[in-house]
């Protein structure tokens, strides 16, 4: 069966520090992968998506970047975090069906 792993679950980082959030998918190959951000009490904002290794599309220009070094690995990064980067980050994958499967999320607090 397919599973998606996202870590860490929570993270507190100082302003100006780097960020690396990792998402991996098991049990599927060549999935479409997505990074979303969700501010408290708000909707889902698509940040990046990838249809294959090394292929990244950015939906919102910002302080973040994404990479897909392997077929089932999707990484969200920042060189210098801002206070406004705080939020709930969700990774999702889509295989052959239409729906997305979401990871459990990372709560990032920038202080």
């Amino acid at each position, binding site marked *: 069966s397919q599973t998606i792993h*996202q870590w860490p679950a929570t993270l507190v980082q100082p302003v100006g520090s780097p960020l690396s959030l990792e998402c991996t998918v098991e049990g599927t190959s060549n999935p*479409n992968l997505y990074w979303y951000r969700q501010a408290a009490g*708000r*909707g*889902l*904002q698509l940040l990046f*998506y990838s249809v294959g290794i090394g292929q990244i599309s950015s939906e919102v220009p910002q302080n973040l970047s994404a990479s897909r070094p392997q077929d089932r690995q999707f990484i969200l990064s920042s060189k210098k975090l801002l206070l406004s980067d705080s939020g709930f980050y969700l990774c999702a994958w889509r295989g052959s069906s239409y*729906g*997305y499967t979401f990871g459990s*999320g990372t709560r990032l607090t920038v202080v």
Partner: protein
Amino acid sequence: GESVGLHLPTLSVQEGDNSIINCAYSNSASDYFIWYKQESGKGPQFIIDIRSNMDKRQGQRVTVLLNKTVKHLSLQIAATQPGDSAVYFCAEIPWAGNMLTFGGGTRLMVKP
């Protein structure tokens, strides 16, 4: 979309009552619709889906209704329970499309 930055509307219902959560979509080419449930601190989870060639689909205690004429989607939850308290998102995808577009979400609060 613009709804990302808005506070989620809230629906408050009494335990045992039926809940109806509504969603409007704008893309007439949307072919597939999904309802997700997101509990606090967790990722969204699939509840039920419906294709555009249907107008109703039932699951366990949930029913999704699709009205393509007015581009409206609704989720009905029968005999709402405290465990149903969550944020509910609708999502749509066009035929042969690659991207789900999410609605703004509705917070459901169940009063005991």
